[in-house]
Every structure is written in structure tokens, then in C-alpha cells.
């Protein structure tokens, strides 16, 4: 089946089984390796992408469901000003250890700050609770999100 959607700002078309996981299509057909498979059952958030601006676990989405929609992965975010702020903030806050979960946390941070530019600690914890990290104890990821909120102040309000 032919499925058209917008991927990282560009119109794309795949000819595939609509039941295939969006995760596999992104990784295997488009080589978007920033989308990671940590569990395959919607628990860990390593495969998080934005679909029409909302954060979604791509392992739970059949590719047929994104027909006509806008899908954004970490690769699509990379050149934005917002990403750069998150990137620098994660570096300075020590938010990264093994890194396997990190792109997922970046996506969750982006989605949160777009909706809530000045989140409280509780808001942040809630917003990243769909992402698992086994290395950091979360504190320094939360520091990274706070720093990104502060540094990108004007960006998030646009």
C-alpha cells in the first residue's frame, strides 16, 4: 500500500504493509537511527517522535496511521533553534550518560516546552515520565530541561 506523509518537513511516500511499525519504517526505510527501539511496547520512549506536534511512541503506531500527517524525528529537529538550546542545555547539565534514551528525552523536552514554556519541576517529571532512563536517576535530565526553558525563554513563547 502506498502511504504518503510529511517526514521532517518533506513529503514522502512509502509502499509498504500499513501494519508495519512506524519505528521500523523510519529506521529501515529512511535510515533515521536517532529513533531507537528500547522495548517495542510503548514503555521506554526511546522511539519517541512527534506526529502533528504531539509526542508519540513510534513503536506503537502502524505506518498506515500517519497517512497525510506530519512526522518529526530528532533528525528533523536538529537544525532548529529550539533543538540547539536543548542540545547545549543537556550538555551543560550533564543530562547524558549512555545516550540510548537521549533523543527520546530531547523529543519529550521539545514537546513540553512548546506547550508549557515555564514548567515547574512536577510538570517536567510528568512530561518525561513516558521515557525511561537507567543511568541518570533523572535529576540531571530535569536540570537540562529547566536550563533549556530558561535559556530558550523567548523561543518557546513563539
Amino acid at each position, binding site marked *: 500500500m502506498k502511504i504518503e506523509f510529511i517526514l521532517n518537513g518533506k513529503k514522502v511516500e512509502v509502499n509498504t504493509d500499513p501494519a508495519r511499525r512506524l519505528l521500523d519504517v523510519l529506521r529501515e526505510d529512511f535510515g533515521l*537511527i536517532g529513533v531507537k527501539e528500547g*522495548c517495542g511496547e510503548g514503555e*521506554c520512549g526511546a522511539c519517541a517522535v512527534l506526529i502533528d506536534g504531539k509526542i508519540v511512541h513510534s513503536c506503537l503506531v502502524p505506518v498506515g496511521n500517519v497517512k497525510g500527517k506530519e512526522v518529526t524525528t*530528532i*533528525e528533523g529537529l536538529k537544525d532548529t533553534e529550539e533543538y540547539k538550546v536543548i542540545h547545549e542545555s543537556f550538555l551543560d547539565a*550533564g543530562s547524558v550518560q*549512555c545516550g*540510548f534514551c537521549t533523543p527520546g528525552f530531547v523529543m519529550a523536552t521539545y514537546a513540553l516546552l512548546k506547550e508549557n514554556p515555564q514548567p515547574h519541576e512536577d510538570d517536567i517529571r510528568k512530561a518525561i515520565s513516558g521515557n525511561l532512563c537507567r543511568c541518570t536517576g533523572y535529576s540531571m535530565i530535569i536540570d537540562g530541561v529547566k536550563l533549556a526553558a530558561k535559556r530558550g525563554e523567548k523561543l518557546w513563547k513563539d
Partner: protein
Amino acid sequence: MGDISKPVRRFDAPEKIMGTARYVDDYFEEEMLFVRIVRSTRPRARIKSIKLPKLPSGYCVVDKNDVPGENRIKMIFDDWPFFAEDVVNFYGEPILAIAGPDREKVYELSNAVKIEYEDIPPIYTIEESEENKRPPIFGENNLFADYFYEKGDPDGAFRDADQIVEEEFRTGFQEHIYLEPQGMIAKYEDGRITVFGSMQCPYYVKNALIKAFGFPEDRIRVVQTTTGGGFGGKEEYPSQIAGIAAFCAYKTGKTVKLVYDRAEDVEFTTKRHPSRIRIKGAIKDKRVVGIEVDIALNAGAYAGLSSVVLQRAMFAATGAYRIDNVRVLGKAFATNIVPLGAFRGFGAPQAIFAIETFMNHVAKKMGEDPVRFKLAHRYKKGDTTATGGLLRSEVRLPEITEKIIEMSEYYEKKKQKEKDGKLYGIGFSMFLHGCGFTGNGEEVLKSIARLKKRKDDKVEILISNVEMGQGPQTTLRKVVAQVLGIPMEDVIYENPDTDKVPDSGPTVASRTAMIVGGLLYRVAKELKEKWKEGEEVVVEKQYRHPEYIKWDQSTFKGDAYPEYSWGANVIEVEVDPLTYEIEVKKAYAVFDLGTPLDKKIIEGQIHGGMLQGIGYATLEVMEFENGRFKQRTITDYIIPTAMDAPLFETDLVVEPYKNGPFGAKCAGELTLVGAAPAVCAAVEDALGINLYEIPIRPEKLLVLMNKEDN
């Protein structure tokens, strides 16, 4: 703390944030084959027959007959086969593998394999293994290891005691849940096997493949790919996957990818050993003057590293306390469960949970405050450890304790019994961790570290230790750059490739910073002297224990470790008075881990290690029932999320180790070992009862509290 401790941006972080770092599953090749392992669906049985489906062209089966050398994973006893031979010993044991170009088809074919079994009565628990009423799994008595050591006169201490306290403790399984599942890619080209993958110990994998193929060492190459967490789970187990992937590559001549899905990884890879620890204490004048600790580990179906895990547990048996009359017994029992293995702490978390909880209980019995009671027993410089090793450095536990008590407002909070309608409790733990390999491990290893100064005046770090999140890409660069007086950017440290790097030992036992970092420090000093601009200079050194370290591996007497790190934790909990659900609200830590090589990286290690320890004590439940784990995915096996994680407050006390780089000691494991006993003490404080088991489960608390009420 000098310059070295000042945080810098991690070298490995930018690629990881951008998502461009390549983990094993991120490598794709045209014509790559996928592999699925066909596993035993019986916990213990003889294989009667195997019926294969018809295989389309391009698909093949690989089994024990395709192992060119020995069908044994090289470890300590070498009893663990890559593929089961006549008998399977645990549910999920690999029997054969199917390789082919289409992943879905490979899955379909592997599900169509029919295996007929003849069941053998299985053994699951320590007690069943101990009773030895069923055909033994290993040797004549199911014991992978049976050890003993003594100090002083324990019998005399018990004879003269005012009182004897006896308790039994239990700890559960713990699964690593590194975020990146295990996996390997293998190739067979020009007569050489090359394996790429997620691992902690490239030379363990290489040596396992040398034995499995019977090849000379120059025909085996192992390359680490960016590794998404290990925590011990990628210490010995990757050899199993590497072997199977390599056999498939050897048979087909194609590139082969074998990446576990999460369910396979949760159910069929190694985990932390469950334990039963019995402690008997001789009390005289309100002090523990003699102790007998009897440690039993459930070790699973094959020996793996269990004997060494048991040794570390035994050497940690008396915790941070000087007790002059000691007897420690240890056994590792074979059972029909997946082999249990390395996990951050390596036997110490079990032992420290038991001794800390025991000391709390005795203190309460004596009507003493546990903190003061523990301080009265704590080790001092010049004391000998349980194995008779000499503590040569200052033991700064009083300072550590003072800091944490003040930071946590322990005594003010201790008076509190309720908070926001919840039962409130606060708990304290005090502990140590032996740095580097246990016993004679470092002497056997004789690690080699090399630095190569290139013509362009950049310096390559050539070691086999890996970055898996814990930070050596940054900390070891800092060490070398600072000794040489060059910018960190001029130091290169790539993921190890056994064709390029010497064997500097495995990335385990919190040894990378202190042992390998110390060696690199000395290599860098020499390179600095030999430095010639524009020329290539190579310097390497082999590790030797300091001369003063004395150890007898046959009697377990002497310095079990060259140095120790120390710590104290305080945990605050709130317990729901109806459901007994536990919320860990705040976690405090003060550690002496020597000089931190980067304060931020150490902070990250502390938070992550403590949260893993808190999970171990609370949420992380893994039950074994009817031959299988009940928890088989991360939907069932719960690890803490950001909503479960407490707020952390930490501080350091620095007693440098002269042979560590800039005075660094061990850090990674130390951060985990004290959390569980502090959580337990806090829950005991909240509920006013004694506990003997982790994980602490609300449903069990409910039963206990109902009993108390009646």
C-alpha cells in the same frame, strides 16, 4: 579538589543527543542476515527430537554441530554451552538458531521448529538445590562454589557472648534494563571472524571466540559499538550472543545481525543473584564482638561468574565494621534458572543489605541509635578487614556521617511519624566498596595500557575499556591531557577494537578509573618525558599491584582489594497507611570515592546508582514461578520513572588513593550498594517493624501489618 574535578562537557554527548551515535542495531548492510534463537520451552529436560520446518533457499539452521571449536562459553569453569547439547537446563536456553534475509520469515520459521522433550525434575530454589534430592545439575551436590574463611576466634566469641542474635535475610532477582538491548553483528571475511557489538569486555568476547572457533588469536577481531548501558549485564553475557552470531556468519559467509528484543533480553539474559543470608552475632557489652555470616546465592543453570560474585559478597559480609571474630561461609547453588551474573555491585549489594539491616536490628534491640551504634563499630585506619587485610588509608566515616546527618537533618526528621496523611520514615546506611577486581584478579589479568603519540602531536588512548555511559571517554581523556599538559581535544579515545588495543582488562568492578586510569596516568608521565614534537612515540605499561598488597587466594587471607571507597546514605520515605505503597521522597549521599575525575560525571553516577539501588529495594520485582519468570517485559518488570525518582542531595569527602589517577578511587558500584538498606531502614522506621527481605512489597507489608495488629 583540584582542576581535574572541574566538570567539562562530555565528549560522547553531542552525537548521543543528536541521535547520530551508532549503537549495534543502527548498522545496516545490504544482504545482511537476521538471526533468531530457538530456545528451550522446558526448565530442565532431555532433548528427544528436533523437527525443523522446510527452509526456503537462503535460510539456514545453526546449532551445536556448527561450533568449529569447543561448544563452551569461556568463563571460569567453562560449563556453559553456546547451544544446548543433549540436555536443557533453563527455560530459554538456546538450542539452535535460524538465519535468513527476511526478519519476519526468520521469526516464522523459528516458531515452526518442533522440539520433543523428556522432562527431568527441575530445581529452582536454594533450598531445593541444597536438599539435593533430585538429580544434581552440577557435580554431585549442585555447588558451583563452596567457600569459607575465618578471623580471630568466632567460637570463643559466641561462647562468651551476653546474647546471640540470629537473623535471616532474603534478596531478589534484579534485571539490568540497560536501555539498549544486547546485540552483535558478525562477519567472516578472509579467514577472519569479526564481531561488532554492545559490550563491556572486548577481550572476554575475543577469548570466548578463540575457544569456540579454535582459531589463533589473529583470526578473531572484536569491536565495541557505542553501548547503551551495561551495569554488568554486558560483562559475560555478550559472549553468548557473539558466538551464535559468529557461527551463523561462518556458516553462511554473510554479515549477520543478532539483536535481542526487549522480551528476550528481560527473560533470557543474566540478572543479579537472589540470596539467602543468615547472620549470627555474638553480643558482649552491647557490641557485636563475633559474627557468623552464611551466604547462599541462587546461581542459575551454569557457573558463569558466580564463584567470584560469591567471593565479593563474602568479603563484604561484615560491611564497614570491625568485628574481630568472624566466620564467613558461602555457597553458590546450581538451579534451573537462567544463569545469574554480574550486576553493579557484584554480590556486595546482597551482603551490605544483610549486614546493614542486621546492625539496625541489633542497635534497636540494644536500645541504641543505629547511627551511633554503627559508628562505634566502624573501621579505622590501621584496622584489619574481615579477611585480615590492612586498612592503610584514613577511614573518614565519622566525617561522612556528620555531613550526611547535618545535610538530611536526620535527627529532627527522625522524630516525625506522619506527613501529609502518610506514614513517614527515615533510614541510614554506612558501607564500603572494595575497588577493582576481587582477590588476585588484577594480578592474573596483568592489564596493559598504551598511549600513542602521533606525528601530528595528538595522543591516542589504547585500552580495551569501554564507554557505556559511565564517562571514561571524558574522564580518561582528562587524566591523560592533564598529565601531558595538552588540550583534551588532542587526546583521542575511540571505541576499542582488539586489532588496535592491548588487553587492559574488562570494564567491570569499578576498575576503569582507578586501576586503568592509574596505569594511564603512569604511562602519560613516561610519555611526557619521551615526548618529541612531530615524531611518533609509543609507551605502554603493565599493571602490577602495589608491592605491599598481600593476598592468598586459597585461604582468602590478606588484602582482598588494594583500596576501599566509603559512603553513607540517608533515605526518606512516605508509606500509604492503607495500601502500604512506598514513595521514596529524598535520597542523600556522602561518599569518599577519592578525587572525583569530574564532579558532574560522579554526580550522575551517584544519582543513577542510587536510583538503581532504590529500585532494587522497592519496585523491581522479578518472580520465578513454574519454571519461568512471571515478569518478561518492561511492562511487567518495573524500573523507576521520573515520577518515582526522589530528589537527590549529595556531597563528597576526599581521601585520595596514591595509586589512583590524581587520587581517584572506585565509584560506579559504591553508589548502588547502600541504597537498599537505607530504604529498608526508612520503611522500618515508618511502620515500626523489622524487615528481612528486598524488594519490599506493599502486599507483603499489608500481611505483616495485619499480623502486628492482631
